[in-house]
């Protein structure tokens, strides 16, 4: 269970992200952040959620919006550590990150996915685990609508960002 206290953070001069309520994200639940471009979804991840997870030493895996930059870092790390794993595309990089998480941590944690085209691969992987993960993701792709059904519960995160919980 992740509990985020009420917050108010200036993202840039004319934009503040704030929540008057305590936000709760439960284990084994998938949450989709909803809002228009520029509403603060990615900023919520970077400025609120991830610092909270780091501060409380909660294990997490973060798929950045510009995932191709993460892939360059992964390839560099693999070159240094000389691990035998071939990263050629988004899918293989995603697989490597998930595999590394499971091999090294093997415990419940949080998966944060900011517009990754391999979302279906990530969710399929998590569904096969024997420990619970909390998943928060952003996607504007129509095909990812299948991860939120009609009974989903929608809650407000801030004035511009909402959160849809899969049930």
């Amino acid at each position: 269970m992740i509990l985020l206290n009420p917050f108010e953070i200036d993202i840039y001069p004319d934009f503040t992200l704030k929540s008057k309520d305590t936000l709760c994200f439960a284990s084994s639940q998938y949450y989709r952040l909803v809002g228009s471009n520029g509403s603060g979804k990615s900023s919520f991840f970077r400025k609120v959620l991830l610092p909270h997870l780091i501060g409380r030493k909660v294990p997490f895996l973060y798929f950045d919006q510009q995932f191709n930059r993460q892939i360059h870092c992964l390839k560099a790390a693999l070159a240094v550590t000389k691990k035998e794993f071939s990263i050629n595309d988004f899918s293989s990089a995603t697989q490597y990150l998930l595999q590394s998480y499971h091999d090294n941590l093997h415990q419940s944690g949080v998966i944060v996915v900011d517009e990754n085209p391999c979302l279906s691969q990530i969710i399929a992987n998590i569904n096969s685990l024997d420990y619970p993960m909390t998943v928060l993701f952003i996607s504007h792709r129509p095909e990812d609508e299948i991860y939120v059904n009609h009974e989903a519960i929608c809650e407000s995160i801030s004035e511009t960002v909402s959160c849809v919980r899969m049930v």
Partner: protein
Amino acid sequence: MMIKLCELYGSDYLICDGSNPLITDSLAEEMLLYHIDVQFQWQVLNLYNQLCARNLCHSANISALSGGQKILLMIVLALHSRAKKLLLINVFEHLDADKKKSLKAYLDSQTIKTIRYIDDSAKSF
């Protein structure tokens, strides 16, 4: 994949990749990179502000824009560049439904540029 696209289209298309929409933190510098003449720069701002419902100015720090807003800015800059042909890669999937609709309508209505689209983000690295 990007290298192949550059080989195929690089000689006559301006390639705009949604995975790497902007290079600098400054709108003025992006304008320079796209060789946009000073007298047309207000058109860039007008169109961007119209599509994005924002009030971006010439001196804006564009690193503060969201991912989708950066992509919209990249496209607006490309539309005002001297390139006659644009290759837009993975641009729509990062846009919300309203902006996607507005952008598509605008691109369909313009007749000055030849535009090709590629949407295959999982393989774009």
